[in-house]
Structure formats: C-alpha cells, structure tokens
C-alpha cells in the first residue's frame, strides 16, 4: 500500500515549521513519529498534500525535571519514557503504559506529542495524562499557550491543537508526598488497541488518607475519559476495600463503551470495573513501597 502523492518538507526550526504550517493551512499535516499517520495515509484515510516533518527540528525531544514539574518534549519517543530511571521514581506508570503501546519497533519512533495530538481515545497515553493532570503546551506563530488536559480532547481525532499550531511540550506536576500510579489495558494481542484500559494516580498523606486521585480510561468513550465520580469516591478515604469497590463500580457505570470486535458493552464495563480495582490497588501498593 502506497500513500497518495504529497510534498514533503523537513524544516530545521520550529519557527520555520510554524510558518510553513501557516502558509499551507489545511493541506498540510505534521509528521512526528508517523506511526499513526503513515498507516492512515497508506489506507488513504488521510491524504494530506504536504507533510511537515518535525524530526529535524532540534530541542523538541527531552525529559527533564524543573521546579517540581516533569517536562516532556513533544518529540520524545515512547521508548525513552519506558527506559528513563528518573521518571520511574515518581511515575512507574510510564513503564506500565509504554510496554503496552504497540511493540518495540513502533515505540522507537512513536512520540508522546504525536500520541496526544492524534486525538484517538484508543491511544493509551491520553488516559495516563488525565490521571497525572498533565498540561499541554501548544505553539503558534503568535506564541505559546498552555491547555489543561481536561480541555485538550475535543472529539474523535480532534484536539485543542488548532490549525497552524504544533504541540510542543507536556508538563506533569511531580507529587511532593506519598504517591503511586499504574496503568493496565486488556488487549486481545500485543499491539492491539485496548478493549479497555485504566490509568490511576493516587496521592496520600502520612496517615494514608487519599488526598488526590486521578483516573483516566482508555477506549471506552468517544474521547479519553476522566472517571470523575471514581476519583471523588477515593479522596478522603483510607483507600479501604469498600472505597475501592465503589470507585471501580462508578468507573464501569460512567464509561460509554460501544460494541465492536473486542467485545460487547457489558463485557467492556466489566473489564473497566476489574482493571480499575486492580490499578487502584497497585497504585496504593506502590505508594507504600516508596
């Protein structure tokens, strides 16, 4: 399968990329890792007239901790979060999720920024970013702006990144106290999209009372979904079995899965309930191991 014809430019600065994007408008698409876009172009689901390749733009690939925040450059490859020891201290969830994204070759090229900007609720990183309360930085010709993750996903393949803009950075607050996080998805085989996936991040005080909970769900709603009632059911509790069971129940009730080849609605709700419970327990376990 060969994509339809297009023109290709690999600018060497972000400004150049933004100018090109501005001039070409709707006809152009940004190429990051290309492991969602190129398959779509091969199937002719996407037929951009121009590709603007960001791979030669310096300064977009980094993982750094700055003033209580983890900053991830948009062009950082999935494999880098999987292997970073710095990240693993606070965010073992990245090793969980990376291992479940496609396969090692795809993770060598797929980027964090592309994963989010693609705007697919079946991708895994969006749920993780919801759980971790990420903030996304978006650059345009007029400058940079930031968008909270709750305002980022608009709909199917649609995000806050508007025409002429490029996602540049993802920031995640580093928890100061006791915390733990975890991700898991049920998949039919390696490399499949999730039948259902759950990301959990918990923070607690010294007495073990939950002070903050973030729960994101994968592929059970038209957009990546925050399980709001589940989070509220955990905050203020000692994360006892009853609170965890209630949070898991809420998640299964509040998601909106559809029947497809991966399973019917009841089955998917069941998966969300089971995995939510497991990921809360795993996060709690990790919080007390630190």
């Amino acid at each position: 399968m060969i994509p339809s014809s297009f023109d290709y430019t690999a600018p060497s600065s972000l400004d150049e990329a933004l100018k090109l994007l501005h001039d070409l408008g709707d006809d152009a698409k940004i190429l990051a890792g290309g492991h969602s876009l190129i398959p779509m172009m091969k199937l002719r689901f996407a037929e951009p007239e121009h590709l603007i390749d960001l791979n030669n733009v310096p300064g977009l690939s980094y993982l750094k901790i700055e003033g209580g925040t983890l900053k991830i450059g948009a062009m950082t490859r999935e494999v880098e979060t999987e292997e970073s020891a710095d990240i693993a201290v606070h965010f073992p969830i990245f090793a969980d999720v990376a291992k479940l994204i496609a396969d090692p070759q795809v993770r060598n090229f797929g980027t964090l920024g592309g994963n989010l900007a693609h705007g697919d609720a079946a991708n895994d990183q969006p749920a993780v970013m919801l759980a971790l309360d990420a903030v996304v930085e978006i650059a345009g010709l007029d400058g940079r702006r930031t968008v909270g993750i709750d305002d980022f996903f608009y709909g199917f393949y649609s995000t806050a990144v508007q025409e002429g803009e490029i996602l540049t950075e993802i920031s995640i607050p580093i928890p100061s106290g006791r915390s733990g996080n975890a991700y898991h998805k049920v998949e039919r085989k390696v490399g499949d999209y999730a039948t259902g996936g759950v990301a959990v991040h918990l923070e607690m005080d010294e007495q073990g009372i939950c002070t903050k909970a973030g729960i994101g769900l994968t592929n059970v709603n038209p957009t990546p979904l925050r399980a709001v009632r589940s989070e509220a059911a955990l905050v203020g509790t000692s994360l006892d079995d009853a609170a965890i069971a209630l949070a898991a129940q809420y998640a299964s009730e509040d998601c909106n899965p559809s029947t497809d080849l991966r399973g019917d609605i009841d089955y998917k709700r069941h998966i969300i309930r089971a995995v939510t419970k497991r990921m809360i327990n795993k996060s709690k376990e990790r919080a007390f191991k630190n």
Partner: protein
Amino acid sequence: MKKEITLKINGEEFTKEVEPRTLLVHFIREDIGMTGTHIGCDTSSCGACTILIDGKSAKSCTILAVQAAGKEITTVEGIATTEGVHPIQEGFKENHGLHCGFCTPGMMLRAIELLEKNPDPTEEEIRWGISGNLCRCTGYNNIVKSIIYAGAKLRGDELPSTEPVFVE
C-alpha cells in the same frame, strides 16, 4: 515532486531521487535491489520489514524513504562480516530458529538491538522484545533459543545446548 536523498545502507553510501511517498522498504528492495528485507503485512504489525536505522529497530513499511536521509541503515545483508556469519545468524542456524525463513531477517535485526540494550535477557524479556515480530512456523520456542544462544556468543559465555527440547 521528487527529492534527492543520501543515506548509508550497510556502510555503503547511496544518493537517489525518490517520491516523498516512497516507503523505505520499497526503496531498499526496489531502488537499491536488496530483497533480504521482507514485506509481510504492510501494516506495521508483522515485523518482517524490520531494519536498523542508526542502530534502532524500525518497521521500514511505516517509514518514508525521505525520512531516512542522512541515516545509517542496517539490513540483513549487512550483518555478516568477512569473519563469518553474525552470532545471531549462527544462533538461528544452530537452533533451527526458522522454518520458511520469511520472518527471519526482521526477527534477527530486532534481536540485534534487543541484545545490544540487554546483553543477557531472560526468556520473558526476549518474548516481550520480539512481540512486534510474527512467526507463523516455529511457535517461537526455537527463536527464543536462538536469541539466548546469540546472547551467550556475544558475551563470550559458554554456549547453551542446541539439542531439541522434547516436551513429554
């Protein structure tokens, strides 16, 4: 509009004009004429087209040839030396790591990066490591054995037995 690209494949430099839509795997097979890199599923699932780009394993059916400009590519044709076959090739040969051989080039290139990052992987790490490469013949056991063997050879450790394992 065609673009001129220069890249290295197995140490040799090539300069060619390509359409931006030319996939790297087609470029390697058809423009360069090296057909050891295979096309299996053409949807980045099977891993038969796996090559190394600057040492990183990549599915060449999902990368454009223009994206490889300035890069160093390794294909199966480039892993043996004048000294003889690469340890991973010896591993597959000694352990019957292939039947039809279609997946083997991709499987070996993937295994080379895996062993570079993790010289002494566990069986589970190998199975995760080759999870992007499908084999429809072997059932994977002999492929895992082949990679364990190659790891030992590369480390200079004693080589594991190549006797077939019979399950009662």
